[in-house]
C-alpha cells in the first residue's frame, strides 16, 4: 500500500480494521459505487421525493381536468385528442411541464449538487476521502442525468397510466393527421422521453456550473430558474426572434417532432446539438471552477 512505510511502524494495519484497500475493485466499479451512493442520496432525500411526487401528480390532474372538460361537447383540439386517446396525455403532459415544472425539479437537484454539499460541509469530507474533484463532478453530473431521465420517465409513465385509466386506448392520430398503431405511438413516446431528458440534462449541466460557483444552494437553484424564465420571456418577444435559436428553452418543445409524420428528426437533431453545446460549455466551466477552487466551507 505504501512504499514509504518505515520499518518499525506497522501502522497501516494498526488503526482501522485491516481491510486491504480494494485493489481489485478497479476505478470503474469504484465510480459505480460512488454513483450509486449519489443516486441513493438524491432519491432518498425527502425534499426530492416530494418534488417527484408533484411531478407524478400533475399529469393525473391534467387528465382529470380534460375528462371534466371533455364532457362539454365541442372543445379544443388537444382536449379532444386526449379525450380520444389516453396515450396523447403523455405528450400533453410534456407540453405543459417542459417549460417550467420539469426544469424547476432539475434545477433543484443539479443546483444543489455541489453547493449543497459545500454549505453542509460534507464537500470537504468527500474531497478528503478522497473522492477526487474531477471524478466527483463527473459522477454528480451522471447523477443529474439519471435524475432527468427518471423525472421525465416518471411524468410519461404517470401520464400513460392516468391516460389509460381515464380515456380509451388505440391507434394514435399524429399532428400531421396520420394515424399510427398504439405500439408505434408508445415507441414515439419513448423517443420523446429521451429527447426531453436530454434537454433537461443540458439545463442540469448549467445548474451544476452555477452550483460550483457558490456555497449557497438556493443561489444556484434560483439563478438557474431565473435564467429559464428570462430565456422564455426573451423568446416571446418578436423583435428578439434572432435570439431564439440560441436559447436552450426554445428547443425543449421540439419533442413534438415525434408527433409528426415523418418524424421531424431535423429539428430534434438540431435541438440535441444545442443541448450538447450547452452541456459542453457548462461542463467545462464547472470543471475549471471546481478543480481550481479553494474549499473553505
Amino acid at each position, binding site marked *: *500500500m*505504501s*512504499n*514509504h*512505510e*518505515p520499518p518499525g*511502524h*506497522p*501502522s*497501516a*494495519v*494498526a*488503526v*482501522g*480494521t*485491516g*481491510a*486491504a*484497500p*480494494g*485493489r481489485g*475493485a478497479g*476505478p470503474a*466499479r*469504484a*465510480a459505480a*459505487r*460512488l454513483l*450509486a*451512493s449519489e443516486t441513493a*442520496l438524491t432519491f*432518498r*432525500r*425527502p425534499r426530492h421525493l416530494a418534488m417527484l411526487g408533484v411531478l407524478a401528480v400533475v399529469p393525473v390532474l391534467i387528465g382529470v381536468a380534460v375528462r371534466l372538460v371533455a364532457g362539454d361537447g365541442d372543445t379544443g383540439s388537444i382536449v379532444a385528442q386526449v379525450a380520444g386517446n389516453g396515450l396523447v396525455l403523455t405528450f400533453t403532459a410534456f407540453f405543459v411541464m417542459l417549460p417550467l415544472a420539469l426544469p424547476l425539479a432539475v434545477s433543484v437537484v443539479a443546483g444543489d449538487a455541489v453547493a449543497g454539499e459545500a454549505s*453542509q*460541509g*460534507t464537500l*470537504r*469530507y*468527500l*474531497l*478528503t*476521502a*478522497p*473522492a*477526487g474533484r474531477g*471524478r*466527483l463532478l463527473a459522477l454528480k453530473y451522471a447523477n443529474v442525468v439519471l435524475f432527468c431521465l427518471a423525472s421525465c420517465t416518471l411524468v410519461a409513465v404517470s401520464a400513460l397510466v392516468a391516460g389509460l385509466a381515464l380515456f380509451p386506448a388505440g391507434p394514435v392520430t399524429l399532428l400531421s393527421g396520420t394515424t399510427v398503431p398504439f405500439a408505434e405511438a408508445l415507441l414515439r413516446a419513448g423517443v420523446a422521453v429521451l429527447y426531453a431528458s436530454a434537454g433537461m440534462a443540458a439545463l442540469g449541466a448549467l445548474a451544476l456550473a452555477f452550483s460550483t460557483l457558490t456555497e449557497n444552494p438556493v443561489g444556484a437553484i434560483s439563478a438557474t430558474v431565473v435564467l429559464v424564465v428570462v430565456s422564455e420571456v426573451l423568446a416571446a418577444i418578436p423583435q428578439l426572434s434572432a435570439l431564439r435559436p440560441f436559447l436552450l428553452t426554445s428547443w425543449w418543445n421540439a419533442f413534438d417532432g415525434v408527433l409528426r409524420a415523418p418524424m421531424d428528426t431535423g429539428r430534434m437533431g438540431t435541438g440535441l446539438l444545442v443541448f450538447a453545446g450547452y452541456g459542453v460549455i457548462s461542463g467545462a466551466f464547472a470543471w475549471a471552477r471546481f478543480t*481550481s477552487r*479553494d*474549499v*473553505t466551507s
Partner: protein
Amino acid sequence: MNTATRAGESIAAPPSLPDKNATVNASENTPENAIVTAGLTKRFRGGQVAVDDLNLTVPRGSVFGFLGPNGSGKTTTIRMLLGLVTPTSGACSVLGEPMPAGIARALPRVGALVEGPAFYPYLSGEANLRRFDAADPRSDPRTVTRRVGEALDRVGLGAAAGKRYRAYSLGMRHRLAIAATLLGPRELLILDEPTNGLDPQGTREVRALIKEVAADGTTVFVSSHLLSEVEQMCTHVGVMRTGRLVAQGPIAELSAGTAPVVRVETSDAAGAAAVLARLGLNGAAQAGTTQAGATQAGGVATAELGDALPERICAALVDEGVAVRGFAVVRPSLEDVYVRLTGEGFDVES
C-alpha cells in the same frame, strides 16, 4: 546544558529551508516524516495572509500538537495539507506525496477531521459512514459493513448506528466524525480541534481515543488552541502565531524552555549572581527565562537550575558569605512559555 541550548534554538527559530519555492526539501521528505511543508504560504483574495512561510516537520509515529490561538492559520494549514486549499506559494507533502498532486495516493491513508463534523442530517450514522467510504476509490466495498461497524463500535456509537444524524447530540456528532477517520487503515490522522465544543467527559473520551490510536503507531496531527489538551497527549508540538510558526519540536524540548529556575532573595544580589554564575548556572542558556543569566533585581538573583542540585547551590551561597533570605526552585509552567510565544490574550487576537 548543550541539549538545552539546542532545544532553545529550535524552539525560537524553526528550521528554515533554503529554497522556499521549490518542492519540499529532499532531506526532509523522508519516510521518517509524515508531514513536511516548505515555505508554505496562503494569501487569500482579500490580501489577507493566513499562513506565512510555514516550514513544518511532523515525524512519523509522533502525536503532533498544532497549537495556536483561533485565527492563527491552523485550519488553513490543515486545508492545504489535505488539498482543499491551494497554497499561494511553497509546497507541502503528506506521507511522502506532494500535495495537492498526490491526493489520490496520500489521502486514502489519511483520516481527517476538519473544522468539526459535517454529515447528511437525513441519513443515519451508519449510512453517513458508508457514503464517505464510497467516495474513496480505494476502499473495498466487500468489507464496508464490517469496517463501518467496527469504527462505530470504536467510538461507542454502535447502539446509535441506525439513528438519524439529525438526532445526534454534539458529542455523538464528534464521535461520528472521528469514526469516519477510522474507516480504513490509516497511517496519519489529521484532527482539527477534535474536542472543540465538547463537555469535559467528551473531551476525555476523545483524548483517550487519540492516545489509543497513537499507541498503535499511527501518526496523529492534532490542532488545538488549548495548551492543556496538547500537553496531555502530544509528543511533539508546533506553535502558530498570526500565520507564522513560532516554535516546533518534541514537547520535551519545549518543556526544556521551562527548566526550573533558582530564585535567591538576598541583600547582596550581585554576589549571589556571581556565585550562581560560577556554579555554571548562568551560562549562555537563553531559553527558559527572560533574564540572561543571573541578575540583580531588587535583591533577587535568579538562574536556571540545570543539572545542579539545589542543596549544593544553597551550600555554595552560604559558603561564599551571601546572606540568603529566601531560596526557591521555581518551575514556570508550559503555559507561560506558550503565552510568551503566542502573545497575551491570544483568544481575541485576529
